[in-house]
């Protein structure tokens, strides 16, 4: 069956397209992209995208689907449903499940489960070290054969630089990107950014240098062994500066940040709302400004969600005891479109960081609307106003600091491999 997405403004950064185009989908692939497609079969389904934006499905290089082990927080089914509502058609799920995704069998479980129940494409990220314990390398090759697209000990850093070096070297065999969560545990240990807000709230702080030290260290190791390194959820001005400087002489460095790091500051934690507790923590206004500038200048390549769903009870406690994380799939696009309204990025530039750039990092034939490419397509309204209601989230994780806020921009239609999985048009 064919589908014609007609009358929308197509923004495809990879092909440098921004204009009125019709897109014809045949089966799982894009059949034709042209100014006007008049002739269609009788049974072709017509999607009216006029006054809307048509774009490649978003790709998230960093999320937590919680399965196996934490099905009370999220499952592959609920997580991918939330992802497609938010406009994502491909997501990379981190390895901190239970058991940890550090072996072929766990990777296979995730891949099988995603094939059976996933609403969008799920690409697992394997653990760098067994059990995320920073002691020995996990079976990266076996996991690669089972389908991992990257390795990361996300949630913590690889503690010993020597072990990180081995991981970076070893991953070269499979051309797997290594994704680094930057946090020096001897300096962190708090639960909010160390700054004026933590001074006022009395909450223990996590200083910016806890992130920056490891960012610097990991870059140095990667440069030494000439291996690609991706730094995830960058949150501080110092990190942006370190990465910018490194990129000038070493091109294998990439990085991402998340919508909350350019939307909220640590001031949000002053109410002790545990939904503002996230790791890395919400930073100062100066950091937020630097993150935006990093996005504008291209120092930051990718916007990821770090979608980290949690059950209500783990957030319904004292701030110190609450879990870290924000349920991010369903607000990411709207928050990111704020960058366009603030004139930090144009729409093409923004979508580049959410489609083509993540695809490039992961080596995927995705994030583009070309003839013959997989038909992963979204249609969204960049100006539609809506009020965040966590109860209406498809994700099991209702942990959002944006509840009750009115946001602008909403995904209305998601197609994965030619199949319509979400349609609010």
């Amino acid at each position, binding site marked *: 069956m064919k589908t014609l997405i007609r009358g929308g403004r197509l923004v495809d950064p990879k092909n440098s397209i921004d204009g009125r185009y019709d897109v014809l989908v045949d089966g799982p692939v894009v059949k034709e992209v042209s100014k006007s497609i008049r002739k269609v079969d009788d049974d072709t389904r017509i999607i009216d995208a006029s006054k809307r934006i048509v774009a490649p499905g978003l790709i998230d290089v960093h999320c937590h689907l919680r399965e196996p082990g934490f099905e009370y927080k999220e499952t592959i089914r609920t997580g991918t449903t939330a992802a497609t509502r938010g406009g994502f058609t491909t997501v990379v799920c981190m390895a901190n499940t239970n058991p940890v995704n550090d072996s072929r069998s766990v990777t296979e479980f995730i891949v099988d489960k995603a094939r059976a129940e996933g609403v969008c494409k799920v690409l697992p990220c394997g653990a760098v070290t067994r059990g995320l314990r920073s002691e020995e390398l996990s079976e990266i090759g076996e996991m690669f054969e089972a389908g991992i697209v990257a390795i990361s000990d996300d949630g913590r850093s690889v503690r010993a630089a020597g072990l990180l070096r081995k991981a970076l070297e070893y991953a070269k065999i499979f051309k797997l990107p290594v994704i680094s969560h930057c946090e020096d545990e001897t300096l962190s240990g708090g639960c909010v950014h160390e700054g004026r807000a933590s*001074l006022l*709230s*009395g*909450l223990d*702080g996590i200083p910016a240098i806890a992130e920056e030290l490891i960012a610097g260290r990991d870059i140095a190791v990667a440069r030494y062994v000439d291996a690609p390194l991706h730094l995830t959820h960058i949150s501080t001005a110092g990190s942006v500066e370190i990465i910018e400087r490194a990129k000038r002489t070493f091109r294998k460095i990439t990085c991402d940040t998340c919508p909350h790091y350019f939307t909220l500051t640590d001031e949000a934690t002053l109410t*002790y709302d545990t939904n503002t507790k996230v790791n890395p923590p919400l930073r100062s206004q100066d950091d937020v400004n630097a993150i935006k500038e990093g996005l504008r200048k291209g120092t930051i390549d990718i916007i990821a969600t770090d979608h980290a769903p949690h059950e209500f009870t783990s957030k*319904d406690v*004292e*701030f*110190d005891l609450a879990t870290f994380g924000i349920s991010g799939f369903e607000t990411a696009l709207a928050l990111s479109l704020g960058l366009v309204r603030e004139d930090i990025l144009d729409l093409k530039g923004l979508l580049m960081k959410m489609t083509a750039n993540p695809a490039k990092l992961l080596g995927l034939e995705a994030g583009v609307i070309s003839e013959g490419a997989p038909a992963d397509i979204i249609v969204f309204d960049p100006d539609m106003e809506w009020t965040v209601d966590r109860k209406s989230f498809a994700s099991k994780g209702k942990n959002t600091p944006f509840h009750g806020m009115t946001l602008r921009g909403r995904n209305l239609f998601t197609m994965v491999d030619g199949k319509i999985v979400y349609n609010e048009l």
Partner: protein
Amino acid sequence: MNWKRKDLLGIRDLSKEEMLFILDTAESFKDISKREIKKVPTLRGKTVITLFYEPSTRTRTSFEIAAKRLSADTINISSSTSSSTKGESLKDTARNLESMRPDAIVIRHGMPGAPHMLAGILDSSIINGGDGAHEHPTQALLDLFTMRDKKGRIDGLKVVIVGDIAHSRVARSNIFSLKSFGNDVICCGPPTMIPPHIETLGVKVEYDLKRAVRKADVIMMLRIQKERGGTTYIPSTKEYSTLYGLGREHVESAADDVIIMHPGPMNRGIEISDEVADGPSSVILDQVENGVAVRMAVLYLLIGGEA
């Protein structure tokens, strides 16, 4: 003054006028404690629960006496006797207590924001009796009361706060109150115990105790927590005592009418010498006495009238 608050969570929420109103109200209550019959029927039929997750004799007793002198019924729950050891969450404990219809809950908790969490879900008045390193509002109010009593004013004073500023809720609450009345506040302690960005609160930092206390009107000593010694913040309490223990020579270089304060309990011989603690400048026992009056005023203002 139209008092409208249900809860007392922190000094930072209070206006100058509100603080003065509490102090003025406390003046009236202070006399009661001096009488033979130290009791008025004001809060007859009201119930006050003190819910303490951290050991405290002074603050809990002070609140209890304050409530009793106003004829309220008091129930004390400390962490050793509460369900917290059985793993019940703070929210569940609080909701259970609320079902017994208390009028006020005084909570002390090791984690910042715990009182705020309760205030958000309970109808009872919540009084912050100290939450982690955040605030201890009644302590700051009784300190303000004592300063006004002894110095005749609470503005334009040079106040030196000495000790572990970073982990002290007493320091934070006092900084907020003293700065809103336009006092000169100097924080003195080892840099490991001075939180970053403290100067954004308008205070000065001085690492040298001798320099800090020169011409001071008020010296406020903080209790040094012995468990912070060793590898963490200071090499040893002995070394701390050498550098930051308050002795007679410090008092002599301060203003002639300096007052020495301490929220208690004191580590004699560590942060303060016997000579100073028991000397003529010490107002430490006045603080304890005023604490009852200030807490009576707070209880009265929060639960005395119609909600």
